[in-house]
């Protein structure tokens, strides 16, 4: 059974058929301190990949390099064949801290509409797209509210709607469910799976939660070491349709999660 391939750089196992993103020999240093080294992998079109690693391993740095928000000191990131220099049009980002990533002076609808203004959509088109995205995350009744009038989970759904309305081919999420309660977190995870299946988008999600990574992913990329490199790129061979209780009760789920755990902890 093909479940795990421990990678050294450049091996085909890191690849994906029909990749939308290629990461080549990516490394980053802050001054003398090297944080990331030799990351080499591909993200397939329509794939759901979680990048998992312990706190402080450099996940956020990696995410910034992947999105073009930070220029890596080594290697390169290709998006749809093009080298990324700045955030590309086909990529949307959902930030960790929802309470800081939404504009408190704009209504829910205007927050979702804003990126579409700069993208050059007409007024009617913008609103239609934004309303569709808000319906997708179940917030049709809250378009006129300010974000801070909503609960944490709902605010993060606004941020997700903003990403969806942008019509990206890839959504990159930085620990998107880290600051909500457990129940909301499970709901948001399932919402993400549903939306992703419905819209056929590629999702790259950074998390420190191993359960979440295994539950959501087609493949899990485990980061570890100092400087951090790829410990493993694990194919999650669970049934495609996931369900919070039954999926997590599968013996295979337990096997995978302890496998990832050992990889990250190096035990």
């Amino acid at each position, binding site marked *: 059974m093909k479940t795990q391939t421990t990678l050294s750089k450049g091996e085909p196992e890191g690849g994906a058929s029909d990749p939308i993103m290629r990461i080549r020999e990516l490394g980053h240093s802050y001054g003398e301190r090297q944080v990331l080294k030799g990351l080499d992998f591909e993200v397939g079109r329509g794939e759901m990949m979680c990048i998992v690693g312990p706190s402080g391993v450099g996940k956020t740095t990696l995410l910034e390099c992947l999105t073009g928000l930070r220029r890596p000191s080594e290697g390169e990131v290709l998006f749809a064949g093009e080298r990324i220099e700045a955030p590309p049009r086909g990529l949307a980002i959902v930030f960790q801290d929802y309470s800081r990533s939404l*504009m408190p002076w704009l209504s829910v609808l205007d927050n979702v509409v804003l990126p579409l203004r700069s993208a050059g959509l007409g007024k009617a088109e913008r609103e239609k797209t934004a309303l569709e995205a808000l319906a997708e995350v179940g917030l049709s009744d809250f378009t006129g509210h300010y974000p801070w009038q909503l609960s944490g989970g709902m605010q993060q759904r606004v941020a997700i709607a903003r990403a969806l309305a942008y019509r990206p081919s890839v959504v990159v999420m930085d620990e998107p469910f880290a600051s909500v309660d457990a129940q909301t977190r499970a709901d948001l995870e399932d919402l993400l799976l549903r939306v992703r299946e419905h819209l056929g988008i590629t999702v790259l999600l950074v998390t420190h939660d191993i359960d979440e990574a295994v539950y959501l992913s087609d493949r899990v990329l485990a980061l570890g070491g100092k400087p951090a490199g790829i410990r493993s790129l694990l194919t999650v061979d669970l049934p495609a349709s996931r369900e919070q209780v039954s999926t997590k009760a599968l013996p295979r789920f337990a096997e995978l999660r302890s496998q990832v755990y050992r990889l990250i902890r190096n035990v």
Partner: protein
Amino acid sequence: MSRTLRVVTAVARELWLPVLLIAAWWWFSAGSTSLYWPPLADITDRFVDLWFFEHLVDDALPSVIRLVSGFGIGFAVAVLLGLLLGSVPALEDATRPLVEFMRALPSVALLPIMMLLLGTGDDMKVVTIAFVSTWPILLNTVEGVRSVDPVLHRVAAGYRLSTWHRIRYLIVPAAMPQVFAGARVALSMSVVAMVLTEMLGSPGGLGYFVLDSQRTFDIVAMWTGLIVLGLIGYAANKAFGLVEARVLAWHRGFTKQKEDQR
């Protein structure tokens, strides 16, 4: 509680003390023979004679126009300059001592040079008011621009917002609470500058009226002028508060929400 009742309660809350003081003034000044402290009854009689409507049109209105245009120019210049300086830290560092110096200059001290350069007419008056109101707004705008949450800057970069949209939907609204705090200070300084320029500049306006009445020993008229000045200052503050409540409606709810969470 019905809406009308609420309005009545709010008005009563704000006005009971002034009304009480006016009543006391009326009572104690009645029958006064002092030249400097005429009975309030005389003042109110003259008030109606003078201000409805001859001096209202000839003096109060031009004063208000000067105040509004001076403050408006100062506000616009300060916000535009503040956006620039706030976005370019090197420029801000270089100009900070100059701006602090300008803000510290009392408007009285400026008048001789303003009168030399611009004469004693409306130009001098409006420019002085604008000058005085610029600095506190400028300093606050710079602070506001600099305090924009870095996460929001990353959102703007991630979603490729155009420069204009970043200014219009991110930087300006984020800086607005600070801008308004500065503008409130600037407004009271503008009223001072208005009175002062009118006292020293060419005849006309409320400042001139008050000083001229005093010089001609028309103390009752002087008192009416002071009352008009007070009313205009009060009205200016109220109008400002209304605009602020509208522009910063989100900010009130937002900060309240944050406090509740704590």
